[in-house]
């Protein structure tokens, strides 16, 4: 067994958000993988604040590829390897089995979570370790176990320890209050990072997940700020006339792509965060906006309405502004393009025809030109890709309110994070933190 220290993100003293988000699975796969997660035994005094095995079950079921067996249908409730009889799980047609127990670490306030993960058909132990942390880190430990299980079964790195940023607006006493919040990927443990009576827009993560950038109207004008998550320290990055918006970190973390309309119409610029040097990328009298970086940081994908309606283009940073490659053609409006980690498939917001009023999340393969529309609601926007490329979170409307939905890359699985109050929008999925 490996003794592994959990890497936990230090959070500055910030307020717990009033309304927590909780997940609803709205669409799953046809043949989910059967897995049994036996309730972990707690061998200490009192009651634990978190149910670790339930956290793992929720994680695995939310991404739609797993179906967990109800403990009431289990024939035995093992907590460690010597209590496991594979026959008990084979007769229940289970493919995988996770068992564990939680104990108080001797002489400290920490708890130890021991887990073991088995392939039922091959009667093989695939993983097992002890994770140590404080009681308040039990959610992180649960998500960490989910990552291990998910990667062993699917071959894809799990993103259960990642986080999201999003914007909430809420009517309070006749006034609109805007909040920038951060939460676990599943909406739990939401924290307010910024609250304002003026709009907040366009949150984005630095590549190492330690800093964020966003647009705040707190001075009554839209300006770009960065903020360190651990210290809360803020820095105003821009103060140009007119629109300052859409900050997006370069893959190396040294530059911010942004939209400025200081020279007339909105164009794409890149500002170096150390030297503050500003490079103009696009130069066109139409609207150019929504920049995103290519994987290697050499090119920028953006939206322009230079042909009359929004379409998606790409150009090298520093190239002549005439050297623009158009990426979308067969839609009335194609917007907010961003490449998936494979560099070939581009997620975007799509309105097919002028007559069709729906805005949906779609993926375009720029080599085959094949388009897959992933959503079937009508006001979908702000797609943000999980760092393992497996899911896309986006904003939509449900019952007149803004909510966050997530959909798998193949469109088969969907889940929703409803909020109890306010309009929730502009999700930004974090990178991996380690």
């Amino acid at each position, binding site marked *: 067994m490996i003794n592994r220290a959990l890497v936990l993100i230090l959070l500055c003293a910030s307020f717990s958000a009033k309304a927590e988000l909780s997940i609803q699975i709205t669409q799953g796969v046809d043949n989910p993988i059967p897995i049994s997660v036996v309730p972990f035994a707690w061998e200490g005094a009192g009651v634990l604040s978190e149910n670790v095995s339930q956290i793992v079950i929720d994680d695995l079921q939310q991404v739609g590829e797993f179906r967990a067996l109800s403990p009431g249908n289990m024939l035995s409730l093992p907590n460690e390897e010597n209590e496991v009889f594979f026959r008990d799980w084979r007769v229940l047609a289970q493919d995988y089995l996770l068992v564990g127990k939680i104990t108080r670490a001797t002489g400290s306030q920490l708890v130890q979570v021991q887990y073991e993960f088995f392939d039922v058909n091959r009667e093989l132990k695939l993983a097992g370790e002890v994770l140590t942390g404080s009681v308040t880190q039990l959610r992180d430990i649960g998500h960490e176990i989910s990552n291990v299980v998910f990667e062993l079964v699917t071959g894809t790195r799990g993103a259960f320890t990642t986080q999201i940023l999003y914007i909430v607006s809420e009517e309070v006493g006749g006034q609109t209050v805007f909040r920038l919040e951060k939460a676990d990927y599943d909406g739990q443990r939401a924290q307010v990072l910024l609250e304002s009576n003026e709009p907040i827009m*366009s949150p984005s993560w630095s590549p190492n997940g330690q800093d964020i950038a966003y647009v705040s109207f707190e001075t009554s004008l839209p300006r770009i700020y960065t903020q360190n998550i651990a210290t809360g320290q803020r820095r105003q990055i821009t103060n140009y006339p007119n629109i300052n*918006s859409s900050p997006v970190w370069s893959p190396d973390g040294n530059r911010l792509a942004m939209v400025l309309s200081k020279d007339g*119409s909105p164009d794409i610029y890149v500002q170096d965060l150390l030297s503050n040097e500003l490079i103009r990328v696009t130069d066109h009298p139409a609207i150019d906006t929504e920049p995103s970086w290519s994987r290697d940081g050499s090119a920028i994908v953006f*939206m322009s309405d230079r042909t009359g309606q*929004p379409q998606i283009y790409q150009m090298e940073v520093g190239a002549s502004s005439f050297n623009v490659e158009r990426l979308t053609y067969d839609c009335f409006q194609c*917007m907010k393009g961003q490449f998936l980690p494979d560099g070939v498939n581009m997620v975007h917001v799509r*309105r097919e025809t002028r007559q069709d009023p729906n805005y949906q999340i779609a993926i375009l393969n720029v080599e085959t030109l094949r388009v897959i529309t992933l959503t079937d609601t009508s006001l979908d926007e*702000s797609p943000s890709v999980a760092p393992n490329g497996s899911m896309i979170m986006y904003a939509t409307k449900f019952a*007149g309110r803004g909510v966050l939905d997530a959909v798998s890359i193949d469109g088969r699985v969907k889940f929703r994070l409803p909020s109890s109050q306010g309009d929730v929008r502009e999700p930004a999925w974090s990178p991996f933190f380690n």
Partner: protein
Amino acid sequence: MVISLFAFAACSSTGETDDAGSGSQSTSAGSSSGSATSSAGSSSGRLSQEEIRAQNALRQTVFYFDFDIAEFKSEDRDTLTFHARDLAANPNKRVRLEGHADERGTREYNLALGERRANGILNYLIVNGASRSQIEVVSYGEERPAQSGQAESAYSRNRRVEIVAR
């Protein structure tokens, strides 16, 4: 009996102006009664027809736009001309043009559309005598809707430019 009927009529008309859809009606009713008061108040010199028109025009500070259209409506041209002349005649006056869009389409595009709409009015005011330094432009995109909801009735009220005195 007559009095109670009158009261009933008053109640029902109040109820009507409280409806969300008739907001513009109540505004026009308010401005016409306002101009009546001011013209009655200036006992020494009656306001000319032109001055009354100017006062009424300056009371209209919200201008609505068609979907995906950045040009202001032709029926607002005269009203905006009065706003431009008012700024030209009062060089110390400062205003802010706040551009807005409805929620359809992406937020960043709507931020840009709101600015395009406000710039259209900015240019018209300057051509008609206002000074650039008197006017600040800011776009809120779809972030500050005048009316919530996913119907065209809400969308049409959210696609707007507001002239706000500073």
